[in-house]
């Protein structure tokens, strides 16, 4: 690496300019807004109110509902997507001509707009005669169509499912690709030593998969936290179904209470920042060239 002080900063300038003006500066302004009473509908009355917005948020049932919903979705997404991706990747690990096809199929859910994902699944779980209900009715398991997207619990599970649908195929292929990179000699050597299939997985496959964990975890949790598009497509922005982002959207852009909305933004920023912090702690321990 070269040691210089001017050139790198020059090279960094477009990047820093964009990030500075669209992320860092707004992040600071959000904080300033959040301490104001700022309703677009009452723009004559903008004043500084300190932490009042935060106080009203923390004492509002709407916030706690949204928070628990968000945590619920994130929890289920991680719970399901992580192990299933790993398992699927392991189970599909073979040098087979099918791999190309599987990869192609798997990457599609990831590549589509999350909104479209929500729409697709809405039609499956449509409260009337969507696919799910049709199958269940046809099999005689239920006697009347089940209102999937009306019920809070099932609607949230559904949102988690949509996110999972995007993450699992993608995660599996990631796992699969990493596994394929493991030289077969390792496995053969193990087999010569008389190890069982299971031991192979445990001692060889698993440890060599560890580098994948961070990106898998990051992509999964990002998808889980950012649930918005899917939820809106699935069931609209109803009060009891809202996750944090939906709650934020409703407050800021429907009720036009920018002060309160900014405070919510900040809470979201802080909590996701915390998550990010754990991720970045490991950066910086790179080798110098």
């Amino acid at each position, binding site marked *: *690496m070269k*040691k210089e002080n001017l*050139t790198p900063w020059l*090279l*960094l300038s*477009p*990047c*820093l*300019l964009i*990030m500075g003006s669209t*992320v860092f500066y*707004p*992040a600071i302004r*959000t904080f300033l807004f959040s301490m104001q009473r700022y309703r677009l509908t009452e723009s004559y009355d903008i004043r500084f109110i300190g932490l009042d917005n935060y106080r009203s948020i923390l004492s509002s049932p709407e916030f706690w509902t949204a928070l628990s919903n968000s945590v619920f979705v994130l929890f289920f997404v991680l719970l399901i997507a992580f192990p299933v991706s790993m398992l699927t990747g392991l189970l*599909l690990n*073979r040098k*087979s001509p099918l791999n190309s*096809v599987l990869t192609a*199929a*798997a*990457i*599609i*859910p990831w*590549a*589509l*707009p999350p*909104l*479209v994902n929500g*729409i*697709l699944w809405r039609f*499956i779980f449509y409260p009337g005669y969507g696919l799910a209900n049709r199958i269940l009715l046809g099999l005689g398991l239920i006697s009347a169509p089940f209102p999937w997207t009306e019920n809070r619990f099932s609607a949230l599970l559904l949102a988690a499912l949509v996110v999972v*649908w995007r993450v699992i*195929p993608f995660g599996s292929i*990631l796992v699969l690709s*990493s596994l394929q990179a493991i030289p077969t000699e390792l496995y053969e050597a193990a087999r010569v030593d008389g190890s069982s299939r299971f031991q192979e997985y445990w001692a060889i496959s698993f440890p060599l998969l560890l580098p*994948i964990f961070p*990106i898998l975890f*990051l992509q999964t949790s*990002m998808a889980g*936290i950012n649930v*918005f*598009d899917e939820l809106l*497509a699935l069931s609209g922005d109803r009060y009891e179904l809202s996750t944090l*982002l939906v709650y*934020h*959207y409703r407050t800021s852009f429907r009720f036009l209470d*920018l002060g309160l909305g*900014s405070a919510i*933004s*900040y809470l*979201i*920023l802080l909590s*996701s920042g915390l998550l*990010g*912090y754990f991720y*970045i702690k490991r*950066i910086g*321990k*790179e080798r*110098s060239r």
Partner: protein
Amino acid sequence: MKEKWSERLFYYVFSLLFLLFSLGPILWCFLLSLTEEYELFHRGGGLLPPSLYLGNYRELLDHSQRVGQILLQGIGNSVFLSLLCIFIGIFAALPASYAFSRYEFRGRIFILRLLVLTTVIPAFATLIPLYAVFSKLGLLDKRIWAAIVYVSSFLPLITWIMMNYFSAIPDELYDAARVDGCTERQLFFRVILPLSGPILLTVSLMLFLMSWGQFQIPLILISSPEKRVLTLVLSDFMGRNDVSYGLICASGILSLLIPALLAVLFRNFLLSGLMQGSVKG
């Protein structure tokens, strides 16, 4: 390696399930798009429509119909924004990633960490002041500015991936060029840039797909109907009463053709890019 036929069977069955899971919803949407309106709510409906109804597609592809026009406009806007994103994104990320990989300077790790930290933060968290500032400066509803905001959400990831790519280029290459008397600038343009082909392709794909999928940002920053991107158009369709579900499904199928095609064709690039994004230095 001896293989039991039961293992083979299991593999194929499992692969089939995997395919069904990944593509099933799309298949169902496709079937719905070929169904006539009343059939959708028919009580005794089986899984397949009684007859293939092409009316939905005909309506969408008919130039004189409003619906088709709106959809086409949406696709056009999405393409425009995505291409813009690629341009701006690479313009910012290429020099930045080169700087991170090649130079040692004060604040390097700090900036790097800061960038990565912003990856997890939802775009929404900063949209309010952005909206306020944009509206004061009259920048609302201009697609170029929306594109810049798009880029800010992907920039850290893109820079990171490219940085890893550059770091993987062996030192010998740099040294050899130096011995030949190259200046740093010549080095960059004559040696590094030509080598960057694959990663630039990967990064462009990622930028394209990620901007194509954006919904939250355009929702807030773009308002005029003729500038609405595809995701907005689709969500509008969902909320309207005069657009039947078959039509919505047909729109959905048409709109996923482009990203699906790109993703499938270039899946290897995408995967290698994302895997590189997980390597730390």
